[in-house]
Structure formats: C-alpha cells, structure tokens
C-alpha cells in the first residue's frame, strides 16, 4: 500500500522511527527512546496515525522526547515518522502536496474533469460517434472524397461546395485555375513559346556557301584590282541571322612568268563587299608573300581568315558577296596563281 512515506525520496530522510510511548496530551511531543538527540532543528513528517501527513519543526530532542512546534491529537506509541535531512525539503514536499491537490481538483472538476471530457466524447452532436458518422457518410465522407478526387471529372474543375465535398471543391478550384485559358498552364506554355530568345543565346551553325573560284589570274607589276568572283548567300534558316563571317582562300600552285624572282610587292588586300556596299579587308598582304623562283612552278597555299567581317557585313539570303584582290601587284611583271578559290564561312545563330 502506498503511503506518504513512500512518496518521500529516501535521499531526503535522515532518520526513520516509530514512537515507543504516547506523547503528551497536547500533542506537541512524540516519544521514541531510540532517537538520537542530534535530530533537533530538523523537520519531522508524521507518516501514520491520526496526524499522518503533518510536517513540523523538531524543537528539541531530550531523553527520547521529541518536541514539535504544533500541537494536536495526542500521538500514541507505534506511530511512524521520519526526520528529513534539511529544512529546504519542506518546500519541496509542500509543493508536491500542493500539486497533488491541484491535480485532484482538476480531475474532479465539473467543467473539465474526467466526467466533463467523457460527456464531450459521447456527445451525440459532436462526439466521437458523431465524427465517425460524418467520416463514413456516403455523400461527403472520406470514401466519397476519395471517389471524387480520383474521378476524371475533377480534372476539368467546376462544381461548388453545395454539390461537392469542401476539399473536392478546393481541388476543383485549383483545377479550374490550371486549366484557365487566360492564366492556366496552357496559357503559360503559349506565353513562353512566344518569348523571343536573343540570337546571341542560340547555338551557332555554319551554313555552307558556294565557293568563289577563279581558274587562273596573274598579278602584274602594276597595281590593279582583280575580281575573284561572287557568292550569293543562301540557306540561312528563317529566324536566324549571321553572327560571324570569315573568308578563307586556297590556291593549288603559282608560276612566275616574269623570268626573274618574284613575289607580292607592296600593301594589297583581299576584300569583300556585300551587294553594292563598301569593300572590307579579309586579308592584308604587306608585300613579300609567295616568293617564287624565276620562271618556276611552286606550291599553293591555304589560309584561314582571322578577320570577322560581321561588324561590317551582315549578309542575308540573296545578298551577293563580291571578293576582289585590291591593289594586287607583283615584284616582277607577272605572278600567276592557279586554282584560286575563296570560301565564305558564314556562322548563323
């Protein structure tokens, strides 16, 4: 059986005792011939008998008589008590006792005690049984909601709280928003598709262009312009524009026909123009290029253009690029070039 003594932690107890004879009539003493006088000044808790649960200060311990501060019913022999270790324990024990009292009051409260809770849970209107009835309702219970959410009709939206479950109506509202012609996903998709991606963010593609070819030409000792040929731009896909424009050249061989050592003489350029526009330089020769022994046939060459002409020429389909060798001049009377071609490398994006 639980007693108050069981509720007191053993660490708080300095001495457990049982009265060996009755105390005085006024109830202010306990008699225990086994007690040690050093327990004076501590706290005593009466653990059995009519005064069980009382706490008091031990005033004196003289010859087995324990004097406490408060009187009451005479304490007979055989009453259990204990002496606590320190005075602070009084507050702890008092707090416990107070809390126990509070709990007991709460549990037995007419408003929120166990009986009140039971009344709520068993209420016919809002108790557990009533909730069960709602959740299992064939029209708006969980099963009905599950059916509604799973149904294909929900995807098209529509409906109202009056005709559908509240959650189902919410889902339908969201579906309506998703499918809305003005601001739904389809409308968003269309809007995204209508966004124009800046050309400089697209991948560059090289569009092959017809080669510009001249079978043979001679560079004489007097400066002159030699037309290599024309290239009509084609094949640029709709929506793309020219981003880079380079011109490369190649020739198969060269022959000096002047009878003396020969080479290009002086500044001269390989140039390009678009339609009737201005010529722009793709290659600049400073003179001395292609040294050729007297009357000799010698090898050709191939050069990649490094000048991006796009800052000057932005060709579109149908434009005609004209390539010419401007101020062409050889050191000798004639330096012949054979199989000369220019390639227009057009990158679009």
């Amino acid at each position, binding site marked *: 059986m639980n007693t108050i003594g069981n509720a007191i932690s053993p660490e708080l107890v300095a001495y457990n005792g049982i009265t060996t004879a009755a105390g005085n009539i006024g109830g202010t003493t306990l008699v225990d011939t086994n007690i040690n006088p050093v327990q004076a000044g501590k706290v005593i808790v009466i653990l059995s008998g009519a005064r069980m649960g009382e706490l008091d200060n031990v005033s004196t311990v003289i010859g087995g008589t324990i004097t406490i501060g408060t009187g009451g019913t005479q304490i007979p022999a055989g009453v259990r008590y204990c002496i606590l270790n320190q005075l602070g324990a009084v507050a702890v024990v008092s707090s416990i006792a107070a809390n126990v009292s509070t709990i007991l009051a709460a549990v037995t409260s007419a408003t929120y005690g166990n009986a009140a809770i039971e009344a709520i849970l068993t209420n016919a209107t809002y108790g557990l049984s009533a909730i069960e009835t709602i959740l299992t309702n064939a029209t708006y219970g969980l099963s009905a909601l599950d059916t509604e959410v799973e149904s294909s009709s929900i995807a098209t939206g529509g409906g109202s709280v009056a005709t559908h479950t509240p959650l189902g109506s919410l889902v339908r509202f969201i579906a309506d928003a998703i499918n809305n012609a003005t601001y739904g996903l389809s409308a968003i998709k269309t809007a995204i598709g209508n966004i124009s991606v800046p050309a400089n963010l697209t991948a560059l593609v*090289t569009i*092959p*262009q*017809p*080669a*510009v*070819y001249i*079978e*043979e030409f001679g560079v004489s000792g007097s400066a002159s312009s030699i037309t290599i040929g024309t290239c009509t731009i084609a094949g640029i896909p709709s929506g793309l524009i020219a981003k880079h424009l380079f011109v*490369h050249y*190649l*020739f*198969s*061989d060269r*022959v000096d026909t002047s*009878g003396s050592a020969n080479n290009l003489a002086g500044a001269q350029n390989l140039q390009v123009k678009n339609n009737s526009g201005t010529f722009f330089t793709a290659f600049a020769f400073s003179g001395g290029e*292609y040294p050729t*022994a*007297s*009357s*000799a*046939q*010698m*090898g*050709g*060459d*191939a*050069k*990649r253009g490094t000048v991006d002409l796009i800052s000057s020429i932005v060709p579109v389909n149908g434009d005609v690029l004209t390539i010419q060798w401007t101020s062409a001049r050889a050191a000798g009377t004639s330096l012949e070039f*054979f*199989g*000369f*071609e220019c*390639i227009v*490398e057009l990158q679009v994006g």
Partner: protein
Amino acid sequence: MNVTKSAIGYAYDGINLSTSGMIASFIAAGLYWIFLIDLSNSKLGFITSTNNTTWSAITDITGVVPGNYGVGGQYSVCFDGTYGHIVWSFFANAVNYLRFTPNSDGTITIDPAGIQSNVITGFFFYPEIITDKNGYVWILAYSSGVGHFISKNKNISGTWTADTGFPLQLNNSTGGYSGGGIAALHNAESVVVVYGDTNGLYSNQWVSGVWVGAVVMTGVNSFGGSPCLSYLVADNSDNLYFLTQTGVGGNIGSYLFIYKTSWSIVKINNIRMYLAFSINLTDGTIWIFGTRQTGSANIDYMTYKNGVGITGWTTLYTDTGSSPYVLNANLYINVPNQFTVIYDDSNDSYAIKVLTFAVQMPVHGKTSIGAQLKVMGVI
C-alpha cells in the same frame, strides 16, 4: 548548268572531290568506292559501284564535315584490307580521323570509337593517310607557312592516340610549299615521306621507330621549282614512285621520281597539268592521268599514259572550243585538278571522276589495255 546521264558515265551535281595529291577512292569488299563532298550539306559522302560503270546514289557519312570547296576538298582515304580510314580538315584547320568498315552492300560501319577530332591541332590542309605494314595509321598534313607535320596512331584501333614523339614537324619543310607524299613499305616496318622546297626534294624514312634524317634526293633536284599536288607510292617490291608537278621555265611539267637502288627522274611532260596516278603494285606498271588546263578554250584536254616505260600520251578527250572548256556535251574539265581514277584489273576498265566548279560528273571508259592495275593506295 546541269549535266545529264551520258553515254560514258553518270553525272552528279553538287559534289566535290579532294584536291589532286590526296586519294579519294579505293576498292574494298568487292566494290569500287569514291569518296566525295556533298555540297548540299558539306558532309563527306561516298558512291559505290559493282562494275565500275554504274554508280550508286550519294551516301553521306554522318558527322564528317570537311567543308565546301570549289577547288578541292581537304580529305584523303585509304583501305588497309579490313578497314577504311578517312582524314580531313575543315579548310586549313585541325585534322580529324575516322575508321570504318566498308561493307559489300555498299554501306559502311562506323568504328565504335567514332570521329577522332583534332588528332593534329593547328591549321592544316592537304592531309594524307596511310597504314603501315603492322596496321598503324599515319597522317601527313601541311600547315601554311609552317611546314609538313606527320603523326602516327599508337593504337591499332579507331581510337587515336598520338605515338610518342608525334606529331612531328619534318626538317626542311618550313618554306611554305605544299607538295608532299607519304607511303608505307610492304616488306619492312617503315614509312617514307617525300617533300620539298626550293632547295630540293627530301626523303625521310622511319624504320622501326627510328627516323633516318632528311636526305636530299641528290641528282633529281634540277627541276628548280617546288613540288605541287604530289603522290608517293611504294610497290610490292618497295620501289618508290613520287609523282609531282613542278619545274622552272621550259622545264615546268610533270615529273616522276623513282627509287629502286637510288633516285632517278623521269620527265613526263613539259606542261603544267593536274595529275592522277595509279600503279600496278606487282609489276610497277604505271598509269598517269592528266588534265591540261590553260585558261583558254580549244587547248584544254584530258590524257593518260601508262606502262613501265612511261611512253607516249594517249588523249582521252580534247576541248572542242565551247565555253567554258567543254570537251564534249557531257564532260567539263575547267577545274581539272579534281579527278580520281579507279582501275579494275578484273574487267580491264577504269573510271575517272571529273569535276568542274559548277558541275561535277564521273565518266567511265573502257580500254583495251590489259595492264593489271589496282587503285592507288590498296596494298
């Protein structure tokens, strides 16, 4: 101008061949193969024939884009008995490589390794390709104003890994001249490269991992010019044949340099021509096809000569004077540096593929000449 099917061949519009000096054809898997550039998309493609007379439609090789050229594409092919090999550059750019299997149904199977890009990085043109006796692939290419470079694949596979010491720039090749050739010997693990500048011709030989330094081909340097658009072939006895176009003044012409125990020189003609070359690898019988280009009507023509002795020329076609340089109603050679020759030793026929700038066509002829020739490059 379009060309229609003629009595002597079939026309292909919108194609281009590699520049003279670079091989565009071989025989493999029982078929004749000519590789070309499809000008509609700048991809490298091929046509095949079972009889050297009728040819297939063009099949493009996915992803191989050597570019669009009027004079000649920058690619070469070879066949090693099992695999075909292609090397190309996009207009004087990095060199790329692809191995494939030619199939008897006229298709090719691309090697799983796929295209090997930038096997030689830089700015190159005139790439040439061979396989040596042990199956390793070699590439010779030229960089404008820099010189000839050579590289070797460390692997016998479609995956390119440059062997130790490669790519290598050849000595004496800094003059900015384009002629060169590479050949593999049949009886030794050896490769020979011939190239030149105004100081002469040089040969380099790689023997089992060791380079024999540039050797001036003394005694054959009287031509004065620098070699252009050149071929180098080794026959089955490892005699070497270097065909080039060069010369000075009245000596400008076509020259054939032959090495048996030492180099000798044969002057083929006294004019400026574009050449194609075939040889019987067994007996050394030579076929040389040339087109004469003058820039003037009435005097352009296509011709050939054959035989060990390189005797007189036989004219195939002569310019009839129509503009521009129409040889006959179906043949144009106003860009005569683009043609390739396949000779079939089983039916004694040859096919010549001729291109012009705007119009390209292959022509087929049958000769009574019984020389047993193989297409150049076939071992």
